[in-house]
């Protein structure tokens, strides 16, 4: 799962940023936090906000390790600890970045050009989805299990699969989030139109309403994909993150100003208890399975934290977690940039590329039965994959062929 907003037209690295290299068509420094320790805080006049790349890089690390199923130290630390995953961050950031970029395009070239670029991006992702899902489907027909975990087997004849795939009715694991992106980005011209007309509140109310209707009537707005009970990233629910992100990106200046006027402690006081509460609840719920003990309450709780429906508890958790992360990253930018920055920012700047190339790694990981490795060995294996992905970005491996 990854944020596939194309925010760069030129290859970028940390070194070039530091050297004051040429900046591309990117977003501006947006939500800088005043009052941070001067030597540590993010302070850049670059158009491109590296904190966004940093968060995306972090999400990529979480995503890759989660997809490389194993009982590793990394997964023990990062998987299933809280009611949030990398996917929520990616979808929100995709909207945020596209909102920022689209405003710039709107000002420079008008609504037509901005909308056209969005549709081109949706088409790129659609083609990417078709290639990945198509190759996996063909491989599975030839040899069942060959493309696991994308498909374990094909429970339908080839012609039904061939019809379902282009209609986004095929639910390949790992790849299925692309369907959500295609639909969200294809619908973005409408979002942009509403924002341009000043209909931000109606837009957000519509988005929340759509999400709310899905919580109450989850079968009403989602077609059942071929071979799965329901879509994992239900559009009616997950669009909320994208639309809110898009609106935030579009109104970045106003929001940035408001953000800058509120003390950091306020955000931490608000977000930290929620994050801690989510961690504790998740521990007793998912890890220990002892809370809520009453069946009726547990039934309700399961609906509130449901991932495919993006339950309300997940929305609150994601919001709190993002605010907390952003606050910390903003305040501690320099040390973070100096330590893990070169890896995370590099990965985050090429998120679509990393997402695409991680798919064969995941398939190979399962084919080689690596999920059964010991804790230490699987941790080393996952680290090696992450390093390989980073090297592939640094060496621009197949950049001409694979979209980024």
């Amino acid at each position: 799962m990854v944020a596939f907003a194309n925010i760069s037209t030129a290859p970028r690295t940390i070194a070039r940023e530091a050297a004051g290299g040429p900046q591309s068509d990117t977003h501006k420094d947006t939500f800088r936090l005043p009052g941070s320790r001067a030597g540590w805080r993010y302070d850049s006049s670059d158009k491109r906000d590296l904190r966004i790349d940093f968060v995306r890089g972090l999400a990529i690390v979480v995503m890759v390790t989660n997809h490389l199923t194993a009982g590793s130290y990394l997964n023990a630390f990062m998987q299933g600890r809280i009611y949030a995953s990398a996917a929520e961050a990616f979808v929100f950031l995709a909207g945020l970045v596209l909102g920022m970029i689209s405003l710039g395009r709107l000002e420079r070239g008008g609504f037509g050009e901005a909308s056209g670029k969005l549709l081109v991006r949706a088409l790129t992702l659609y083609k990417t989805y078709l290639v990945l899902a198509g190759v996996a489907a063909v491989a599975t027909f030839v040899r069942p299990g060959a493309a696991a975990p994308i498909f374990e087997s094909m429970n339908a004849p080839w012609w039904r699969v061939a019809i379902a795939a282009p209609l986004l009715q095929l639910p390949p694991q790992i790849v299925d989030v692309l369907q959500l992106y295609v639909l969200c980005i294809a619908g973005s011209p409408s979002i942009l139109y509403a924002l341009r007309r000043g209909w931000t509140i109606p837009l957000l109310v519509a988005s929340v309403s759509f999400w709310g209707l899905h919580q109450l009537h989850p079968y009403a707005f989602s077609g059942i994909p071929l071979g799965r009970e329901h879509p994992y990233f239900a559009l009616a629910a997950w669009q909320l993150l994208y639309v809110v992100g898009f609106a935030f990106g579009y109104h970045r200046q106003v929001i940035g100003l408001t953000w800058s006027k509120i003390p950091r402690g306020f955000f931490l006081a608000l977000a930290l208890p929620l994050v801690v509460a989510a961690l504790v609840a998740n521990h007793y719920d998912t890890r220990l399975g002892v809370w809520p003990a009453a069946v009726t309450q547990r039934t309700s709780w399961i609906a509130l934290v449901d991932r495919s429906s993006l339950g309300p508890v997940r929305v609150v958790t994601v919001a709190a977690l993002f605010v907390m992360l952003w606050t910390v990253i903003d305040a501690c930018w320099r040390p973070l940039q100096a330590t893990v920055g070169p890896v995370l920012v590099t990965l985050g700047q090429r998120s679509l590329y990393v997402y695409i190339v991680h798919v064969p790694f995941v398939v190979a990981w399962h084919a080689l039965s690596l999920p059964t490795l010991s804790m230490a060995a699987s941790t080393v294996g996952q680290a090696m994959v992450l390093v390989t992905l980073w090297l592939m970005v640094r060496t621009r491996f197949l950049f001409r062929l694979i979209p980024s």
Partner: protein
Amino acid sequence: MKNFLDRVRPITLTLAVVGIAATAHGALTASETLRVPAPASARATSLSSEDMALARTAWEYFKVNRLESGLVNSAGGFAATTMWDVASQLAGMVAAHELGLVTTSEFDGWMNQTLGALARIPLYKNELPNKAYNAAQLFPTGYGQVNAWKELGFSALDLARLALWLSIVSDRHPEHKVACHAVTARWKTGRLLREGQLMGTDLDKGTETYNQEGRLGYEQYAAHGLRKIGIDAPLAADGPRWMHLVPVEGVEIPVDVRDTNDSVAHNYVTSEPYVLDGIETGYAALPAEWAGRVLLAQTRRTRRTGIPTAWSEDNLDSAPWFVYNSIYVDGREWTTLNSSGNEVSARRGSSLKAAVGWHVLFRTADTERTFKGMRWIADPKQGAFAGYYEATDKPNRALTLNTNGIVLEALLYAHVGKPLERWAAESQATSAR
């Protein structure tokens, strides 16, 4: 004026959006609670990791409770079984094999053992299988008295379900066809039927009573099963003859016209026959519309009370040990009776087997919520628990073969995407090997 309109338009649009959403919510709620649901189009689905975990847990019950005879304890650690439970054992074994939980060689060996045991158990009066057996030593027993030889009589309902599952095993695994046939070949079935109705016997202190068996739901399901061994019971199969509609939660549900006013048998309306008929035969025995009505009454109760409702007959983990959670019985709604027919509504609760069954068949938001809310009620090392008690809101920790077998067959239904009777007839056993 233009500025005024520009300011008003977002407010108008916001109100319009809220209005549309509220209207949609109302319409959808009405659709979900007023319309009798129809079974979802059955199609094969990949089981989620949570459902596979449930299947593995249910299969643990089989592994933990497997006896040297090949049979499986009907309740955890209790070496007794009935022919109904043996049918659930066959269902669970077939499902586990299809879901990759047991190897083909182990499955074949275990199935041979089981069918061999069924082919040599002493029959009641050398006629038909007794109602209960010591599952380890294969002799007839009374209910709950596993160590003493005792003949109780035979049950047409139990034998019908076994006949249906022997037919499914035989179709899906032709290599076991001869062994399946050997089980029923020695049955003397003449007394199973009288004047087109299903019959059973009770032997008490040397005196046998010979009674019509089955009420609406179970009766038609059993009549369908007995066709597998060439027994046609037209009166029993004729559901509409015995059915009248009774309002429960504002839903007209099918109820047997025969109640305790004119017979000793209770006319329980509960989920089990409707769930099993849907999963196993695709509603060949009972109209799907009746099943939809029985489900809708439970859906409305869930929404009215906030209590997840999937009522069925079930074992309990404490006295009175077995109850019929009845949506309707003998003129009363939402009543729980024990085996003696006494009301024990304090022990009422929902069953996992009904929750999973309803969900794989109808796939509504309500069935999903109830199923997901009950899916975790299990001990991964012992098996899935029966369900939960409404009074305490705590799990009913009874571990039974019937619950775990039905859980597995329901998941198999979801996996293969068609009624199991048809799936078995259509599939080639060799393709699965």
